[in-house]
């Protein structure tokens, strides 16, 4: 996989406080990654360092592609901007070198998707917290970034905007972008996040992605268990009354179903299950 950003032994020390310790992390192209952790664990600091707007106390952040376009949504977007969303976004887009024609169309489209059309002629400083956060999101996705970094992007967003955001993240990934985000108390991203990292006391660890996934239970007939056992997509197989229960990650369920059909097997039921602790142990 192509590397997008490489962090080598990053540490960050603020006065008397070691926020991040010796963190190494490689971010590849076309991924959706989440960094989770409690308050004050250094998530935002790490994101700012990956974005290149904060320097580590020691260690290195490398971008193999020097012309990488990074979009960054700060946790707190400045609220005292004296421009209207349209003016502001046009200026920000021009700074990244986009043409005016492209921007006008793109800004209109994004303002519409985030339901800001009606507010586009009001100054940002006069908007509500949620609307300001939306402007913060749009400035980051305006230029189709190679790497989009979102620091708690859901704070203050209504449910329509949250859904629009999840959809846009999916679209950006399709276009080859990598998305790196942090969030709290929400599972709206769980279906799209592929790798999750956990920050604790300045150390980072990867959470097995399988645990975060929702699982499909496929109940099938007329298929040999021995055949199915070789399929790597399948997490667990159980046999009961000549029926096979296959536990499959959501993403892979279509592939498995079509294979079952190809083998002239029949499908009895498909349902979504949440992993419980017993299941986790089994897997």
């Amino acid at each position, binding site marked *: 996989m192509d590397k997008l950003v490489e962090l080598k032994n990053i540490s960050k020390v603020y006065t008397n406080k070691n926020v991040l310790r010796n963190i190494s992390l490689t971010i590849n192209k076309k991924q959706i990654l989440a960094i989770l952790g409690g308050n004050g664990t250094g998530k935002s600091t790490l994101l700012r360092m990956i974005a290149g*707007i904060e320097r580590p106390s020691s260690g290195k952040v490398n971008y193999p592609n020097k012309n990488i376009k*990074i979009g960054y949504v700060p946790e707190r977007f400045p609220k005292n901007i004296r421009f209207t969303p349209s003016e502001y976004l046009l*200026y920000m*887009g021009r700074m990244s070198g986009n043409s005016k024609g492209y921007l006008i169309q793109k800004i209109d489209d994004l303002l519409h998707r985030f339901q800001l059309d009606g507010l586009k002629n009001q100054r940002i400083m006069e908007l509500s917290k949620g609307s300001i956060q939306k402007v913060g999101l749009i400035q980051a996705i305006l230029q189709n970034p190679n790497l989009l970094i979102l620091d708690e992007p859901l704070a203050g967003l209504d449910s329509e905007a949250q859904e629009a955001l999840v959809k846009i993240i999916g679209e950006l990934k399709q276009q080859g972008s990598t998305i790196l985000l942090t969030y709290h108390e929400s599972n709206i991203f769980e279906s799209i996040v592929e790798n999750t990292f956990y920050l604790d006391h300045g150390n980072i660890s990867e959470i097995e992605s399988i645990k975060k996934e929702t699982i499909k239970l496929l109940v099938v007939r007329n298929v040999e268990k021995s055949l199915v056992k070789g399929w790597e997509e399948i997490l667990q197989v159980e046999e009961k009354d000549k029926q096979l229960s296959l536990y499959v990650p959501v993403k892979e369920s279509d592939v498995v179903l079509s294979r079952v059909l190809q083998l002239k097997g029949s499908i009895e039921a498909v349902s979504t299950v949440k992993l419980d602790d017993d299941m986790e142990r089994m897997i």
Partner: protein
Amino acid sequence: MKAVIKYSLHDYLRSHKYFPPISTFIILIFVYYSYTPNPIIDSYAVTSLILYIISAWVCISVLSLDPPVQRQLMILHIGGENRYYLSKLITVLLISIILTAYAFVYPILFTMFNGSVTLTIGLVAIVNHVSLSILGICIASFFSKIITESAVNSYGGLALTIIISIAALGIYDALPSYLKGIVWIIPPATITQTPLINWDGDNVLDLSFFPFIWVIIYALLLLYLFLKLARRFQK
């Protein structure tokens, strides 16, 4: 860089922060020319010095416009700290050039001089105004919010530096001979004054160029240091 400059000029207008320094400049020029006639070269030398102070003031107010997070976002969009800071300083320079035009044209338009302004004198006057404003901008950048967080240190430090730089000639005279070299450290705001006052305005070659070049070299050295320091303070 053009987008950052346009953004900053537009934002500066909307912020109304331009009002104190620019109205002060307009009033000072107005008051300075309240008695006529005036000697051309000497008057332009004095208005350049006024512009030096006003440019520094404008610089501090322009550099305080962007909240820190907005600054980070703009640096990301424009692709580097140096481009961001240079754009900001160019914004201030553009404002100073407009003020230069006012300081240059106003006395001619209202016939405040005792003679007519020749092309040579005009050019020298403009060069002097612009180079002293560049010096003022580069000095003020160090006392801006980017490097000096507290407003007291910011305005106090800048005022002190400017006063010392204007008093440089007096300081030079007061110092014992073995310490006179120290004057070279002080911003050369008044270094072009003596050659200008002694110049008759006929031939530009009669004028000593070194002071003008030194002002620019000094400003460029400050600019280099500012860009280095700003990177460190940003991160």
